[in-house]
């Protein structure tokens, strides 16, 4: 991809709206191009202005208190322990006059303990959320890596082929790629498919000449329209076939019953 093409993607990157493939390619370019990094900062300023189109809203007063309380406990953690139990001498003497030093000190300590536990609980909750998010990201990366490895394995096998499928009819806007090797082992990756209605799944077909389409496996895309499928390309379809995807009753059909959503060229 040329420098100019990357430049044209910067405005959309500032909105974090690039698709993953484009974003990865652009990130690589940004690490090497100071001009694009400068221009990205400019676009980020434009994107941030969109925030001002949201009506201002007033959070409840407790939010400020909770933030300041959490910040104070953060600061306390960095100070010495002696400051945590420090009491002014004069106050202690005043309480002594009432003869209840032990009980009151215990009550104060108990109260501090409760507050401390509440702050820790709140921090723990935030950390757990972050941890869950990281775990999800890690799982997603592992899945992508596994898929990439499988793709490399197929494409490095003898007789490897790579075919693109384009959206058509009700599937306009969707895309898919099909990689398979000489043994027929195949991996299909589809994007931007419309959601499959309840009781329906997408199904792969192999069309050889004027013969009836040969049914393949079925799959269900996620809420983003992404789906993947592992299948075996029949021997007679290895050298010359059109690959197509239709929407079928869950479990698949023996002959297509819907319009073609995605198809390859011959």
């Amino acid at each position, binding site marked *: 991809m040329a420098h100019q093409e990357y430049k*044209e993607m910067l*405005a*959309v990157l*500032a*909105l*974090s*709206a*690039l*698709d*993953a493939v484009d974003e990865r390619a652009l990130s690589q370019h940004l690490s090497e191009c100071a001009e694009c990094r400068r221009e990205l*900062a*400019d*676009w*980020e*300023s*434009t*994107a*941030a*202005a*969109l*925030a*001002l*189109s*949201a*009506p*201002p*809203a*007033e*959070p*409840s007063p407790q*939010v*400020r208190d*909770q*933030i*300041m309380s*959490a*910040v*104070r406990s*953060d*600061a306390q953690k960095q100070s010495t322990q002696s400051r945590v139990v420090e009491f002014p001498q004069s106050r202690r003497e005043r309480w002594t006059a009432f003869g209840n030093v032990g009980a009151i000190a215990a009550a104060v300590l108990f109260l501090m303990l409760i507050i401390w536990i509440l702050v820790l609980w709140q921090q723990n909750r*935030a950390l757990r*959320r972050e941890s*869950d*998010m990281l775990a999800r990201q890690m799982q997603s990366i592992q899945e992508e890596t596994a898929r990439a490895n499988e793709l490399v394995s197929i494409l490095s096998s003898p007789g490897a082929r790579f075919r693109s499928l384009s959206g058509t009819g009700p599937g*306009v*806007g969707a895309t898919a790629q099909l990689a398979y090797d000489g043994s027929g082992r195949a991996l299909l990756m589809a*994007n*931007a498919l*419309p959601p499959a209605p309840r009781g329906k799944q997408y199904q792969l077909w192999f069309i050889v000449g004027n013969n009836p389409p040969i049914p393949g496996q079925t799959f269900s895309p996620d*809420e*983003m*329209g992404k789906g993947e499928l592992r299948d075996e390309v029949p021997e007679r379809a290895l050298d010359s076939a059109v690959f197509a995807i239709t929407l079928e009753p869950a479990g698949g059909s023996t002959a297509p019953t819907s319009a073609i959503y995605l198809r390859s060229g011959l």
Partner: protein
Amino acid sequence: MRSEQPHDQDVDLLKAIAARNEAALGQLYDRYRLILFGVLVRILNNREEAEDVLQEVFLQVWRRAADFDENRGRPFTWLVTLARSRGIDRLRALASRERVATMAGATEASEEVSDAATDAIRSEERGVVNSALAQLPEEQKRPLMLAYFDGLTQSEIALQLGAPLGTVKTRMRTGMMKLRELLSARGQYFH
């Protein structure tokens, strides 16, 4: 017209926060709570979740203020980007929960805003942005809003609008260029 003073003041506050000044964080919160909470309510359409994320944002500011580099952008951009990013993360985490796409919540929230002098300077900027957006054709404005407030990618936007991906890409880029041009025409507000 806006002077450089608020920008410089925000930079000073961030430097003080980086030096562990709690009062500076309180001041920054007072200056930005309305706009950041407004963005979060608009993204999440839920005050409780938005308040939770707002806390996370300011705790992150407390921990990461030293990362702010005034040579790379304004404090406003840094803070808004941080809040929007956290908001979209939370939105995705809540994706299984049904979201009611209505502006009612945001309108209600805006009515609650008191006359906050600290935020008054933004009202003029707000007018500039809304006026610029009003000048964009709906076909360009809509994908920008879907990307910014709903966190959708270009493919997802194409799917939602039932438009070809190439068309959506062109409209988004054209829309952003026009928006930048309209905002730049208002001088130092956004650059």
